[in-house]
């Protein structure tokens, strides 16, 4: 309001459709401005037409035609301060976890920020360690990458996302989980799980439940990114999980159809791609000009019957730097995480891996691909050549090693050692059930046994996977002694 001239701009409600109102007047209002009526009910300007203004209601209340809304001179903002860590808040920044109110700081930031340009970004060089063997070795993520997680319900996505956050303990990574239109019970369970696993102290939960009004659900990911940018600006690495964007797309479709915008494919508005791209572009790896730090984005899409060829999943796949495809049939077979390694992609993760890791990963993929091709032959042939048998055996061992239950963290060196063992003579006379029973014992020995743990210390200095495999081959007698293997072998299939 211009106090000198004692005037402010006003508009009157022309018509109302649920949470969407059209106003006249407000001659110089801009998109994303906040207007307010006498009762304190706020509205967000969502569209500008020649004769009227489209407004989304942010607060609950009774709106009637003819009511007056005044401009406030403000955009939609959220208060940012370190006290957000460990809290669950609504998209408007109000705590929803039943604890005390947040002390406001001087730092207010608009929700609708423009993504940073090229000059403020730098190459993605650091690996985002998830502590999950299948991901870190075969489908690696980089800090600043956008990686889509896509799959059916009951394909283990939720426990994977939990592990992503819980495994960041002591890593200095700040986690922000955006629950977009999820049931209130899900949000409560999530909060409790994080608390029990002591992951809440470095996590912010931004949640809008399925019973909330659509404008709030629509704003949830923007709030999450605004908070992420605050912490990233302090030089920290941030993980943002958007669970899930398919609900966000449906909400945006609902708002657009209500506003009378022409529907496009699958009735989504024409700018749905732009909305999601604009959002996900806020992630990245940033240079010192932008505060350093990085924002790694994990958007989630829940599919129906594993169909990832529909409009929204393909859109997000085009925007992101790769995708992890979760399959419910793999989950039902007991594979954890239930990631389809062949159909999952990480476009920028490889450059963040060390040489040893990268070469070992390539070797493993070759084995898995070869074994996949030989699988049909192996079912029909009674006698297979020795090389084929080795490949199939290595495949089963690899699958057992990368199988990892929830809430277990395996560091990179341990992953390399376990997977390197597959290419040594240690696997002679051993099958997958041996590794299933003794995996933890192997890990403990490599960490604690003085005859073995020197390999763990030597890994950062190794140049190739052959070097690692050779070093492991030299300690096979020690391992055999530990597991008391005789010539006939133990743990027969």
């Amino acid at each position, binding site marked *: 309001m211009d106090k000198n001239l*004692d005037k402010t*701009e*006003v508009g009157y409600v022309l018509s109302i459709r649920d949470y969407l109102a059209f106003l*006249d007047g407000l*001659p110089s209002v801009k998109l994303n401005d906040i207007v307010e009526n006498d009762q304190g009910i706020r509205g967000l300007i969502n569209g500008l037409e020649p004769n009227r203004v489209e407004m989304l209601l942010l607060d609950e209340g009774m709106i009637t035609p003819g009511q007056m809304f005044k401009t406030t001179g403000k955009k939609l903002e959220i208060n940012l301060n370190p006290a957000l860590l460990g809290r669950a808040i609504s998209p408007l920044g109000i705590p929803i976890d039943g604890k005390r109110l947040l002390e406001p700081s001087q730092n207010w930031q608009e929700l609708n920020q423009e993504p940073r340009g090229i000059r403020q970004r730098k190459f993605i060089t650091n690996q985002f360690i998830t502590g999950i063997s299948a991901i870190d070795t075969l489908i690696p993520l980089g800090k600043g990458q956008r990686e889509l997680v896509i799959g059916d319900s009951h394909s283990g996505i939720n426990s994977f996302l939990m592990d992503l956050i819980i495994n960041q303990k002591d890593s200095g990574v700040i986690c922000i989980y955006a629950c977009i239109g999820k049931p209130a019970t899900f949000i409560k369970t999530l909060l409790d799980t994080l608390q029990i696993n002591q992951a809440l102290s470095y996590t912010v939960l931004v949640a809008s439940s399925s019973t909330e009004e659509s404008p709030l659900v629509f704003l949830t990911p923007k709030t999450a990114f605004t908070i992420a940018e605050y912490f990233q600006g302090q030089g920290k690495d941030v993980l943002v999980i958007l669970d899930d964007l398919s609900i966000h797309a449906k909400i945006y479709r609902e708002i657009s159809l209500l506003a009378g915008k022409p529907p496009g494919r699958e009735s989504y508005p024409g700018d749905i791609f732009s909305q999601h791209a604009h959002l996900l572009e806020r992630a990245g790896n940033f240079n010192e000009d932008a505060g350093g730090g990085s924002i790694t984005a994990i958007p989630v899409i829940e599919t129906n019957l594993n169909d990832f060829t529909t409009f929204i999943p393909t859109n997000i796949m085009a925007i992101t730097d790769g995708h992890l495809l979760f399959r419910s049939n793999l989950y039902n077979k007991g594979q954890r995480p239930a990631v389809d390694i062949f159909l999952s992609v990480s476009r920028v993760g490889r450059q963040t891996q060390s040489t040893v890791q990268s070469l070992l990963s390539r070797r493993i993929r070759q084995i898995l691909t070869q074994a996949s091709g030989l699988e049909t032959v192996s079912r029909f042939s009674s006698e297979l050549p020795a090389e084929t048998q080795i490949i199939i055996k290595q495949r089963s061992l690899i699958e057992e090693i990368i199988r990892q239950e929830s809430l277990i963290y395996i560091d990179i060196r341990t992953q390399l050692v376990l997977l390197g063992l597959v290419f040594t003579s240690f696997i002679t006379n051993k099958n997958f059930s041996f590794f299933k029973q003794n995996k933890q014992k192997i890990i403990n020995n490599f960490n604690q046994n003085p005859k073995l743990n020197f390999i763990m210390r030597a890994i950062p200095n190794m140049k190739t996977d052959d070097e690692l495999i050779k070093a492991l081959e030299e300690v096979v007698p020690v391992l055999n002694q530990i597991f008391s293997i005789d010539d006939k072998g133990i743990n027969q299939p």
Partner: protein
Amino acid sequence: MKKELLNQFLSQTYTTFQIRSRLFFLRSYINSNVFGSNQGVAANKQDQQWFDSLPENFKQTLSSKASNQLLIELTKQTEQLKPVVLVLPFDLPEEEIFKLGGWLRQIFNLLLVYEVKYDPSLIGGCALIWNGVYHDYSIKHKIQMQQEQLLSSFKGFLK
């Protein structure tokens, strides 16, 4: 032609409430006299006086077969009028409404209509809204602008 009809319609009609009332009157007149409705003409005293003051050619048009079209046209044109909204802390008597309307048209030389809203919290003065801009000339606003000065001078009395 359209503008002339609108001018005739808006003679002695200054507020949006009066416009709606006049249009309702015209509708019931047309229904009664042209379409033979049994419901009679709904009229209050002011609307009747206004109708009596209208020129003959306007009344003749109302009695013809083109009356319905005339009414639709008038409704459209009046909807396009942008009223000045006056926010007052008191109730304005009927005579004052006419005086104010006439004065506004004389000053601005425009076919202005206005709307009165009541907000006692203004205390005194008025606020007006024109073209989406709210101009606040009320006592309440003046007090808010000088709140700190007033409070500090009151505090001086407490000592």
